[in-house]
């Protein structure tokens, strides 16, 4: 825990991390990592910076994160009660859920008929964006710091100018007959 952290902030961060890890799972950062379930090899949304992205003031979700975490933990407790599961009290309820149960709960919360769907979809959208586009960082810097998401999707790195330019881009020959009614300008008839 960092100086100045409160239990509330820690609980919020653990909960948001556990949600992001459910969207794009990753490997545990340490053996005692509770938020990251370790359900997939390599870094996931948490290592990719989901919490940093969600806390950006421009994103719009930062002021809501505390209440989202509280809401998520309330849903998790209810979910556990329904199944007669006893959660350990060391961590927030959602964090205490096993990965499969976190997944099932997120499916329930994001289902088309769930009244809170938009906010959970929003949280998922930003978690995913952290992984596949590193939207909290300059893209050049993301590559310099070996961002796990951009590397995982195999996004080609920028050139020395910090730009993306591809000299090789085409197979270079006709690969299909064109539609017989194409106009001389190349349009549909």
């Amino acid at each position: 825990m960092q100086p100045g952290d409160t239990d509330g902030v820690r609980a919020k961060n653990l909960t948001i991390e556990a949600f992001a890890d459910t969207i794009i799972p990753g490997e545990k950062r340490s053996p005692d990592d509770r938020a990251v379930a370790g359900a997939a090899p390599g870094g996931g949304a948490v290592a990719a910076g989901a919490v940093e992205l969600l806390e950006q003031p421009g994103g719009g979700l930062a002021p809501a994160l505390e209440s989202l975490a509280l809401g998520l933990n309330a849903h998790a407790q209810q979910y556990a009660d329904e199944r007669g599961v006893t959660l350990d009290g060391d961590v927030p309820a959602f964090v205490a859920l096993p990965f499969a149960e976190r997944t099932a709960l997120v499916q329930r919360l994001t289902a088309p008929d769930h009244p809170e769907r938009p906010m959970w979809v929003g949280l998922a959208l930003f978690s995913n964006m952290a992984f596949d586009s590193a939207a909290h960082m300059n893209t050049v810097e993301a590559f310099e710091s070996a961002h796990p998401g951009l590397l995982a999707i195999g996004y080609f790195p920028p050139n020395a100018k910090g730009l993306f330019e591809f000299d090789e881009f085409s197979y270079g020959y006709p690969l299909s007959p064109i539609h017989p009614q194409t106009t001389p300008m190349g349009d549909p008839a």
Partner: protein
Amino acid sequence: MTTIESTDVLVIGSGFGGAIAAYHLAAGGARVVVLERGPWLTAEEFDHDFKLGSSYTRVFDFVVGDGMSLLGGNCVGGGSVVYFATMPRAPRFVFERMGSIGRRMWPASIDRDSLDPWYDRVAEALPVTQQSWEKVPYAGGLWAAACAHAGRTANPVPSAVDVDMCTNCNWMMAGCRFDAKRSLLLNYLPAALAHGAEIRPMHEVQHLSRTDGGGYRVHYRIVDDEDYRVLHGGGAIDAKIVVVAAGAGATPVILQRSEPTLGPMPAAVGRYFSGNGERLNTAILDEDRVREVLGLSRAGGLAYAANQIGRGPTVASWDKLDASLPEYERFSLEQLYFPPGLGTILAQVPDAAGPSWFGVEKKEMLRRWQSWLTIFIMSEDDNEGVFGPPPDTGNAVRLSQQMLGHGPLRYRPTANTRRGWALADAEIKDILERDGLARVAPWTNDLVGAYTVHPLASCRIGDDPATSALDDRHELRGHPGIFVTDGSAVPGGLTVNPALTIAALAERAMPGIVRAAQERGVAVRYGAPSPDGSTAGRRAVVPTA
């Protein structure tokens, strides 16, 4: 007391509908002011950067509605700055569509033949050029090869990209920093400026009212440069003619909000919205099968693995643009690029055992992102979108400081629309899963509803006052002097990318708008050449002085 400015013509929005109007009216001698709610950026400001606050979040708008989400431009140049510049003409049968009203929904005065000369003008102005196989990017070539393997055809699609200047960076949605994409920043808008038009960015029009002289007062607020949720002071400008071209997601909202001051709007304002029947499928290619079955290989010994390389959609299959098929069964299938960030969350894992859009299997799918091929369906939907009450300002309640908000559009796809999507999904699956080339799944509509990058028809032209907001000259029924020339004027889905049709309709509307301005005492003439002075494209069009 604030001084009210005045002008001859006030144009709301600077995309195709606004830029074309601004050019012709300014070139003809009218005083023109363009109010644009987004920023005014130039090539060097268009970033290759995913960071929030980079050009893509400044110029792009993503509005989540109830059952339909819209993507569009939010900058000087509008959609032309963020679009992929794929510019086919709409097929002939589109103009004969009945849609949801049981009779031809286009005005009797418009069909493909009558619109072709106006298409010619736009094609000359941008310009739009025919594309060659020799310069089709890998993804387009792969789609073509798969279509041919399945006994289909595929075409390189006419485009407004200068291919010789293009670096195939696939950052078009953030604005083209190489000026290879022929956006309106390179033709109509500079020509309008040269003729004295004034463009004011970060000016968001909220509503219109009437003036004593039979004109209109346009009320705006200033949008903060960085945090679009923040509106600063405002003002108003009086004009004799108003051209509304804020885009199909915003034009009806401005008009609806103006009802208390302008009086009742036609019933079709904010109704009959079409998402152009759009839907996406993502295929994950088996690189070995691409090599073995299609015989494709590229530099480095790879077969494909080039999702990132290219310039948006370049090749389409038009086999189902067949006039003999029943309405709602016709569609085009176009190879598309969709960048990381916004879209990948909606891509579903084919045959997922667990959740399809997140989780362990989705991460595995993301690891193969370079082997994705995205196929874009443009079909015949049922104009089933309806706008609810407008938000207090703008066209959405903004969530993020840029780009993301919630809007009032409600869309429930009808059985017709869903059947067209299902037929198109099956066609894509048949082509791409053949001989083990790929596994395919459509994007989910469960998260943000359906989605479109081509919103249309929310304030449409037509001959029937009950089902069209505009007459065939694009004048708003019951409100003479207000014209609508953007995508909202298009009557329905086009089965192809609509930008060229939107622009051609705007060109076609110009003689009538100039005439209306003349009747209101504005000293203006119609007859300007192409923005660069060319005249070949206008020879087929009867000029009206």
